């Protein structure tokens, strides 16, 4: 009996240490790229993205014009670098959609604390917003914030947010407009 118990504990310990649930920090990066209309063209796009240090691999979907980008572990999302890679390939970058796992936090901007997401692993910060339109961006509404705070027990639980990211001037974290979220 004792022997069996020891085996169970050891096995459980092993599983916990070596087979932790793989919560990817930022995964499912989908980037719209306009102008790609043949497989020969696509090669240049994928090569330019994969030349970035934070990108593990990239694969294009010609029907939708979306490039699926897998980041390396703890790899940050740098909108400027992704856009530049697409420009260098000769095509036009569009919206970028991500799934980001992290915890609710705040970021001080112009004296005001704004709701933000701190990504697990990389520590990258995204300012949370409701607005899908970057030109009319406003930060997260009270209603949405309350909804998220309640779901994450005021930030105690990790959250996976799916949404589009928008660049900000240098020094200010990018915005993440929430399309949906899930609590872990």
């Amino acid at each position: 009996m004792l022997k069996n118990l020891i085996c169970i504990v050891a096995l459980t310990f092993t599983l916990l240490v070596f087979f932790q649930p793989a919560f990817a920090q930022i995964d499912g990066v989908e980037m719209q790229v306009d102008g790609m209309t043949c497989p020969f063209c696509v090669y240049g796009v994928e090569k330019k993205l994969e030349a970035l240090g934070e990108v593990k691999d990239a694969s294009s979907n010609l029907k939708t014009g979306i490039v699926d980008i897998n980041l390396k572990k703890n790899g940050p999302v740098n909108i400027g670098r992704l856009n530049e890679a697409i420009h260098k390939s000769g095509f036009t970058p569009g919206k970028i959609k991500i799934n980001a796992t992290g915890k609710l936090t705040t970021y001080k901007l112009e004296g005001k604390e704004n709701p933000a997401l701190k990504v697990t692993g990389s520590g990258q910060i995204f300012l949370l917003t409701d607005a899908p339109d970057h030109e009319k961006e406003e930060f997260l509404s009270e209603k949405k914030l309350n909804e998220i705070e309640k779901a994450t027990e005021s930030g105690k639980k990790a959250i996976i947010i799916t949404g589009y990211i928008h660049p900000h001037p240098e020094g200010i974290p990018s915005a993440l407009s929430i399309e949906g979220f899930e609590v872990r």
Partner: protein
Amino acid sequence: MEELNPELIERPCAYTKKETAKQRFRKMHLHVIGIKHISLFLMVAICLSFIIRGAEAAPINSNVALPVRKGGFVFRSQVKWLRATDDPTSLNREVNVVAIPNVLVYGATPNLALFAIFPYIFRNVELTGPSGKRIDKNDNGIGDLSLIARYTVYSRDYPSGTFRIAPLAGIKLPTGEDDLEPITTDSTDFQFGGVSTITWDFGRNEVDADIIYRVNTEADNFEKGDGLVYDLAYEFRVYPWTLPEVGAPDFVYLVAEANGIFSQKDNLHNNTINDSGGHILYLSPGLQFATKRYILESSIQLPVVQDLNGSQVKTDFILTAGFRVNLP
């Protein structure tokens, strides 16, 4: 005019060794064959300049305005076989030329693509000499190097397609073998023009159109006539008929092109060569298989208009097979 001596054609070494190959060519053809026979070789020059020009292009025989990634290289090679046997004279001339234009393309910037074209050429000419004996002449060697720059001045990309306009300019250098004259020349020539590309319906359709003017200069008392080249190409994707939701599958295109050239008459020693120049228009069906890494392609160019000056030999066809590869 002396009668044609087939031995002199087959063994040009009979001339003084001090003479250069170029001098032997001029002497042989001016004083032995006469200007009329020069047209045999000059006719080939119209078609060959056509063949070698098309090599930097895509679809198959026309130019395209699609980008090459910055710092990237594309290599292209084709085998083009031109056969011309429709001889209006009693010489029963038959011309076979196989040109292998190799093209290296470099993306200097996303908008600026640079092309270097270095062809290899095989030429076979047969004709009936004055004695009734068939004369057969073979030459082969490196053709003239061409360098071209293409810059995209306007582009508009959509999720389902793109529209681009790109002017281009180029120079042909006299680096080829003298034995291939007048396919090769000692002159430095120039070309300038533009190309436009539009694609739509997620790559199912593509239309490319270009127009290029060639300014040929004089060297060694010979000047090839200037030329105006025009092309219109349509590509239609037949496979896959419907794109899958994910991925970038291999494509099969049916290609239809119209390739034409207006060429002015040539000049030799300030004499206009009447058996030169004219207008040729080809219709060119073809097939392309495109993957991310490479493209395989083939086409046949069939002349539908051959309005050639004088008694030039008319082209039967130009058959092309080739490939392109994205270099890593």
